[in-house]
């Protein structure tokens, strides 16, 4: 069965969600991933939205923003933004999804600006809740288009902290997060249009975990701004099942987010 790169990304994202987890779902592909996980292997997962909303069923209609009316109807709780972000700060959210304009080999994300931070060449919209999710969720899943200028050796500005950088006090990775005072978390996975990366918690480095069908390690390297390190079990990404594609297309019948 044919599928688009974004449909495959949705499937990869859904596989990150474990049953009964509380997930900061955001919009677009992660939202579809939440619906897919819910209807396949994770029927008890709960979705959290930074507008101040919790729901355990996907909305009845496709959403353009998380504040759209169909997202409120059927919600278990509609409350203030800081109430739900507070739950995440208290460590109660297992998984969070975010995107980014740029990422580096240590999973640090930039959604703020390109160039010098005092006088940026390109001003991007900023953090939104991204920096909070990257700081506070137990695990972070990142979804991005795979382009060489986006996967850089080092980002211009760390909006959402990943595993930091090696410095005179020690390595990147979990040790860096502990050094700066982040209470938990860090990137678990980076899902792109070409590949899936996991991360080595000891060094904080991205590991190529799988390359999508039709791509290859070489092609991924070509589009990645750092020398790839491969996971020991690096392999081709398992393609979507017909059942997974059927669910995705039910949720987004016109391919608004998946074409």
């Amino acid at each position, binding site marked *: 069965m044919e599928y688009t790169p974004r449909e495959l990304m949705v499937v990869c994202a859904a596989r990150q969600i474990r049953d009964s987890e509380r997930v900061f779902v955001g919009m677009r592909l992660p939202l579809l991933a939440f619906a897919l996980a819910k209807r396949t292997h994770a029927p008890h997962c709960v979705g959290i939205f930074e*507008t*101040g909303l919790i729901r355990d069923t996907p909305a009845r209609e496709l959403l353009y923003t998380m*504040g759209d009316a169909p997202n409120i109807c059927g919600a278990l709780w509609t409350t203030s*933004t800081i109430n739900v*972000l507070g739950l995440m700060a208290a460590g109660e959210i297992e998984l969070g999804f975010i995107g980014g304009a740029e990422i580096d080999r240590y999973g640090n994300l930039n959604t*703020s600006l390109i160039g010098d931070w005092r006088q940026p060449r390109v001003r991007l919209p900023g953090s939104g809740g991204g920096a909070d999710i990257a*700081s506070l969720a137990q695990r972070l899943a990142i979804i991005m288009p795979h382009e060489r200028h986006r996967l850089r050796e080092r980002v211009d500005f760390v909006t959402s*902290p990943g595993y930091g950088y090696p410095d005179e006090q020690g390595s990147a990775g979990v040790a860096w997060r502990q050094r*700066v005072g982040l209470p938990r978390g860090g990137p678990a996975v980076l899902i792109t249009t070409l590949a899936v990366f996991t991360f080595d918690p000891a060094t904080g480095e991205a590991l190529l975990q799988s390359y999508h069908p039709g791509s290859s390690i070489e092609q991924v390297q070509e589009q990645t701004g750092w020398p790839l390190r491969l996971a020991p079990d690096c392999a081709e990404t398992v393609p979507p099942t017909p059942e997974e594609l059927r669910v995705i297309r039910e949720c987004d019948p016109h391919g608004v987010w998946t074409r």
Partner: protein
Amino acid sequence: MSKLLSMTEAIRRYVHDGASIALGLALEPCIPFAAGHEIIRQGRRDLTLIGPISDILFDQLIGAGCVAKIQAAWVGNVSEGLGHCYRRATEQAQPRPIITEDHSNFSIGLALRAASLGAPYIPTRSLLGSDIPRKNSTFLQTTSPFDGSPLLLVPALQPDVTILHVQRSDEDGNAHLWGSLGICQEAMLAARQVIIIAEEIVAREVITSDPNRVIGPSYKVCAVVHEPWGAHPSAVQGYYDRDHQFYHEYHTRSRTPEGFQQWLDEWVLGLKTHQEYLAKLGEARRGALSVKEHRYAAPVDYGY
């Protein structure tokens, strides 16, 4: 005591050059576009805008030259991407330079919550290791006096005026808001003064029949404006949906300064009032956004 004013009068009296204004606080819904457009028409200058994600209203105010400073987590177009006016102002100082004190959604909420509690700051572990504190010198990185662990102190933020769009209010400013709440209550409690824009003006008894649904204390409200569809193109739960197409058109047209100016002339400066805006929008478009299926909350009995 009635605080009912026309939008023109409310903005004239209570939004001054140089003021800090919090708006767009429910995130994507209930953005007070009609109020923002009146601020543009009245030519306010040197404003500080406070909000979480701020969708396109911040971009419009920036493009119109009203803004000196932004205190927000995100400025752009939620369903479309970048904010072109925000980019031009930041990158090229067009039409004027602006400065941004970057926040996250949590930190902007905590800043307003701190003010609402009379607390000078609230400590958090969010944003530790992020470069955002570089772009916001109001934050203070320190360590906990309890256990020495690193903390980011988010100082209290008190807007001069918070503008809230709600479903219904009485003439005193006792207002019901439902659906997405975002940081509306925090911003109302933190503010020196509050302007309420309401889809409907209702009797006091409608409001007091459900005091748990009231968003905040009416003694803070300086003006109540009755402006149906005043949040268009954003959504108001139970009243109208988000007009996604409108955001798309704005995104396309605002790519160039000329395109933005034409858009602004057409949708803001060339119209005297929100009534003219609605006439231009047309009944068919409004009809398409209107409620198709009512979904009433289960009854609640406050009796005794």
